[in-house]
């Protein structure tokens, strides 16, 4: 099996736009001001910034925030990987974007234009930017990346699925490098859906700290990672991606044990994106798989709140706070019985 390595990271998250690992302390939820709320409503929100201040030349004025963040995160990841985009074969670079809701901000704007003007009076500039694949397409367009360009959604495991699909493209020689992105934005319609469905934690409505058992605090952001065949010089890989699997049902313990093949990981981190209230259930699953005494990093609320596309932020946080080099297992479980598991060697 080819050795694939993660060589660059870029992110636009509640930590702000960053290249590489995250050194900052975990943020607290902040009060929502982007729309009128009936009292205090909190979430993990991406702080406002001008994309062109971070990535010179990038134009994002008419884009959904998800596309803008994808452009920034991908650019930061390439910068972090030390890649001179002009020196590589861009027809061999794939882009894979994982998302739960896609460009929901401009989708809401399109519905708004239909509500105001009728279906015959909708905005032609907005429509193409509502498409789910717009963020990945803008990344390809900005960096002139002509390899496979895919947008993937998977109930509970969009980010893990994108990572595994990217690995598959590289292993089958359909690309030499992939930028894997995962993320979502928080809008009024998304937040109020969670609230109406009674999925939110009490910490969304008060300044209290987050309790880990009841509901979740929505989050947003995009994380991008450069995945490539090992051997490019100079590169400074964060981790090597090993085998992985994901399933929409079945026996989690049996499936993960088969993946581990009798070689327990040095530590396990929980991606916990399967269900908004799953901080604990994924930890329980991890404990059942790797044993009580094993090192387990629980799912982090700021990443869990991103939902189906949260696993890359979980991975970024795990890499940032890792206890040391070694073999790692990234494990996510879903309230509906599915799981995703990936083996990594952390450098």
């Amino acid at each position, binding site marked *: 099996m080819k050795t694939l390595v993660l060589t660059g990271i870029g992110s636009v998250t509640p930590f702000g736009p960053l290249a590489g690992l995250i050194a900052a302390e975990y943020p607290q939820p902040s009060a929502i001001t982007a729309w009128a709320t009936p009292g205090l409503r909190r979430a993990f929100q991406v702080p406002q910034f001008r994309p062109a201040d971070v990535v010179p030349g990038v134009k994002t004025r008419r884009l959904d925030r998800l596309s803008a963040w994808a452009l920034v995160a991908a650019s930061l990841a390439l910068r972090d990987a030390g890649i001179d985009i002009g020196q590589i074969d861009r027809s061999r670079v794939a882009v894979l974007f994982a998302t739960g809701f896609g460009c929901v901000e401009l989708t809401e704007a399109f519905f708004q234009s239909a509500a105001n003007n009728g279906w015959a009076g909708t905005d032609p500039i907005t429509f*193409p930017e509502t498409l789910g694949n717009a963020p990945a397409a803008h990344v390809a*367009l900005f*960096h002139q990346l*002509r390899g496979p*360009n895919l*947008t993937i959604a998977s109930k509970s495991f969009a980010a893990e699925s994108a990572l595994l*699909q990217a690995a598959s493209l590289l*292993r089958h020689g359909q690309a030499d490098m992939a930028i894997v992105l995962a993320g979502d934005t928080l809008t009024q319609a998304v937040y109020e859906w969670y609230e*109406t469905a009674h999925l939110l934690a009490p910490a969304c409505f008060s300044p209290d700290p987050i309790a880990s058992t009841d509901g979740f605090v929505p989050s947003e952001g995009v994380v991008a990672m450069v995945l490539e065949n090992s051997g490019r010089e100079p590169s400074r890989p964060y981790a090597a991606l090993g085998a992985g699997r994901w*399933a929409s049902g079945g026996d989690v313990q049996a499936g993960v044990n088969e993946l581990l093949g009798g070689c327990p990981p040095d530590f396990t981190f929980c991606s916990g994106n399967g269900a908004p209230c799953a901080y604990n259930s994924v930890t329980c699953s991890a404990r059942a798989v790797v044993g009580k005494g094993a090192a387990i990093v629980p799912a982090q609320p700021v990443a869990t709140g991103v939902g189906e596309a949260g696993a890359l932020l979980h991975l970024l946080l795990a890499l940032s706070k890792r206890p040391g080099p070694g073999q790692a297992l990234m494990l996510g479980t879903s309230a509906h019985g599915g799981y995703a598991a990936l083996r990594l060697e952390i450098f």
Partner: protein
Amino acid sequence: MVSPYGVGLSALEDGMMAGRCCLTPAADLYPGFRGTVAQAAALQPLAAGPHYSRTDRLAMLAARDAVGDLAGSSLLRKSGIVMASTVAGLSEIDPEIAKGPAEWYRHGGLARAASYSVSRVAASVAEHLEIQGPACAVSVACASGAMAIALAANMLLDDAAPMMLAGGSDALCPFTLSGFNSLQALDAEPCRPFDQNRKGLNIGEGAAALLLETLDHAMRRGAPILAVLRGWAMSNDASHPTAPHKDGAGLAACIGSALRMAACSVDEVGYVNAHGTGTPLNDIAETHAYENAFAQRQRPIPVSSTKSYFGHCLGAAGALEAAITILALRNGALFPTLRLSDPIASERVDWLHGELRREPLPVVMSVSAGFGGSNAALVFAEMRP
């Protein structure tokens, strides 16, 4: 398979072989809308349970049709799914949501909005068929359906599951009709792909699911083999957010990659089922792509667009057209483009029009492209004993 011809591959085959056009005025379905659409057959109501979007239901119906007697088997339970969609649950949401989401949710919108995510299309099929393998959805605009098949094929090579159900599903809905109308991309009359006088596309709906497995696996279990997927490729133009590269360079590169994987020469390909939307920009770019990709061919490459039969089914199009391409292969049928009377001038393309042409077709190709510059090509070949 769920198409405007009905449910099942044989309904699609009968409709295509008869050259029957299913396009009807949009105003019949959506009063106030101009244009022409094609609707799939009316869907039977579901028993009470989770809310499934029309796209989900089309997908579930197509998947059930594809698996046939395998439904409920342990083999199917271990299998995986890649379904494509662009519309997904958008069909269930109306503009009232913009005036106040919470209010709209409280008045019945909560369950409807739960079907919004594209991932729900694959998850619905998994629930319906009790599939427990990996399940994901692909949303790459109009190339989605073909890319779902390509990804599923990769997953089979990865041994991610013993079989993969791959396809696409999209329902007609005001959001997409309005969007394409705002871009002035719709032809008010039945579309005329590759015609000098083409004016735009028509929207259709449907779903297709193909059951993929390795040749060894299929032969071991004695499965009927409809065709062999010999090659696939995906690429991006990286040229414009909505328009294709004017020279079709990305698509030509994609076709070349698929042929290399299939180990096929350009002369072996007997028919290309084109993307052929009927929009001025797409069809000329696509023509250039064929001229470049098949430049070394001894005879012009036979090409048609079957979107002239029941419109552009968006995320389902690539999968439905893969099925039509397989029907072409099995029947030796070079389906003509309907209403093509004054084709784009090209010495290297043999535009199929008029009567259905019949000849042996050992290798055929289906080509898809979409907004965002994405391209996909699938090469199918007959099963040789």
